[in-house]
């Protein structure tokens, strides 16, 4: 609908980098602890670099939609007929309604209430889930800077429970490059047991140990992630840029918006009835 083709022809929109996009708040509220309350906005800290493709119909380039399919009936199932079941054993389900799910969903958070402070170096990186930034909003700048500075110096982080979307997360609020970052953490029950991972037994010889140590020392560098890039992504983007220059992009058939507002049968019946109504008048 608002899908202007000319944007795509210039190639600019298509190849826009994630990090050039305007910062958009996902949530706004306050961070609070004790008597402190800082108004903030939550924004994304990372944008996964996956190149995504639309699936098209080869014969006319119409974008395709996903439908739920019933293999038993060999037919597409109408959304009205789709319900949720939790599989307790193969083929055995407990049914659950939207209302039931909603009744156990947490209320949206208005505050990030820090309940305790911890040493960030005690948190193993396996607990890190997804990073965000917190940006101060009007009136909160001073308190925000103070908290950033104190947490940076002490390497402390605030722990809080926080509802985003439909889930309640355990989050750590910490200082990161002069700003506050919010890291959603995995719950401990999500961490898989590691007992069987590390092999047991056998003394390690001191000579072997020192040999490996030496190799590592020789290969040491500062961590500079910009040296590495997602090679596949880079190649795909280069390929797309090349193709965009060489070829005019294919176009989906222009669907007349209004005609698309009902099932084909209904539109046909309406047209036919309308013709008869007009004839009679």
């Amino acid at each position, binding site marked *: 609908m608002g899908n202007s083709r000319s944007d795509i022809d210039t190639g600019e929109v298509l190849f826009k980098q994630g990090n050039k996009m305007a910062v958009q708040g996902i949530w706004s509220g306050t961070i609070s602890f004790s008597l402190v309350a800082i108004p903030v906005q939550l924004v994304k800290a990372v944008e996964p670099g996956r190149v995504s493709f639309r699936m098209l119909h080869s014969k006319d380039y119409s974008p395709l939609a996903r439908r739920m399919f019933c293999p038993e009936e060999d037919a597409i199932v109408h959304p*009205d007929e789709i319900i949720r079941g939790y599989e307790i054993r193969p083929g055995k389900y407990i049914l659950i309604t939207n209302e039931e799910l*909603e009744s156990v*969903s947490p*209320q*949206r958070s208005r505050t990030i209430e820090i309940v305790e402070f911890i040493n960030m170096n005690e948190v193993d990186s396996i607990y890190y889930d997804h990073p965000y930034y917190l940006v101060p909003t009007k009136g909160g700048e001073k308190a925000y800077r103070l908290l950033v500075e104190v947490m940076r110096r002490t390497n402390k982080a605030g722990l809080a429970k926080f509802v985003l979307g439909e889930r309640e997360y355990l989050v750590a609020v910490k200082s990161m490059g002069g700003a506050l970052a919010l890291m959603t953490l995995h719950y401990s029950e999500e961490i898989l047991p590691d007992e069987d991972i590390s092999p047991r037994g056998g003394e390690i010889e001191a000579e072997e140990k020192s040999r490996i140590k030496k190799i590592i020392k020789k290969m040491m560098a500062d961590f500079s992630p910009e040296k590495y890039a997602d090679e596949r992504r880079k190649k795909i983007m280069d390929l797309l840029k090349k193709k965009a220059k060489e070829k005019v992009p294919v176009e989906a058939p222009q669907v007349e918006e*209004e005609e698309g*507002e*009902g*099932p084909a*049968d*209904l*539109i046909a*019946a*309406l*047209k036919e*009835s*309308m013709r*008869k*109504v*007009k004839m*009679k*008048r």
Partner: protein
Amino acid sequence: MSRKVVEIAGRRLSLSNLEKDLYPSYGFTKAHILEYYRRIAMFILPHLEDRALTLKRYPEGVEKDFFFEKRCPSHRPGWVKTAEVSRDYGERMTVCLINDLETLIWVQNLASVELHVPLARVGSPETPDFMVFDLDPGDQATILVCAQVALILRDLLSRLGLTSYVKTSGKKGLHLYVPLNHKGKTFEDTKQFSRAVAVIMEKNYPDLVTAKMAKKYRKANVFINWAQNDSKKTMICIYSLRAREKPIVSFPLAWKELENAARQDDSEKLQVIHSEAVITAEKQGDLSREVLVKKQKLPYL
């Protein structure tokens, strides 16, 4: 503040300011309003039953400020029936149900002159009992243009096998109701269907109809407001008074009456005042009864 205690169906109600003129240009007091609703009760109650009421209150009369009240006031008597409905984000809200005369009178004592109700009942908030076409004329269009559009719509729907019923909005518009009265269709369906109808009407009668909300398209045209087919929307209840200079009622019409009014170019016939409403309803019964009982299926969906 003057008070008068009355007893209705064994329940005591304290009515206030009965002498207050709520339609000052016409001269129609709160006592008149209560009397209107008392006499129309047997006709209006089935249309209000089990529907989440939105009160539109005019404490200082219809020419002064009003306010909407969706929550049932907490100072309500214990016998007022209520329901819990969920709003966006799962928030719960208690609403009034006008299921009996005493509640109707209590609500009118709050100067809730206009009664607005959704198209679905509280027990099944996602399945509308009817599909509506809210015909809303632009500034330069009249109710007679609405009548023309309504008559074409009736014919079009009838060719699709659907019987429709019409009422005045009590203002400048008309409302077409297509009864469904089964749980097979959701608001998604009625919205899709009514939108397709509105769009084809617009295409075939571009000088009469618009299917677009924006005011600039209305002007001399009638806007077919298909978007009223939504669980969050309400319509003025059949037989409700409207808040305007005179106590005009949203009143059901026989198609013949609408045809006659259109032919005679007589828009006065489409403005039904309180006394006429009571007399006509008592004489002919509820013309819109079928809206509540007739079962119809939306074809081609």
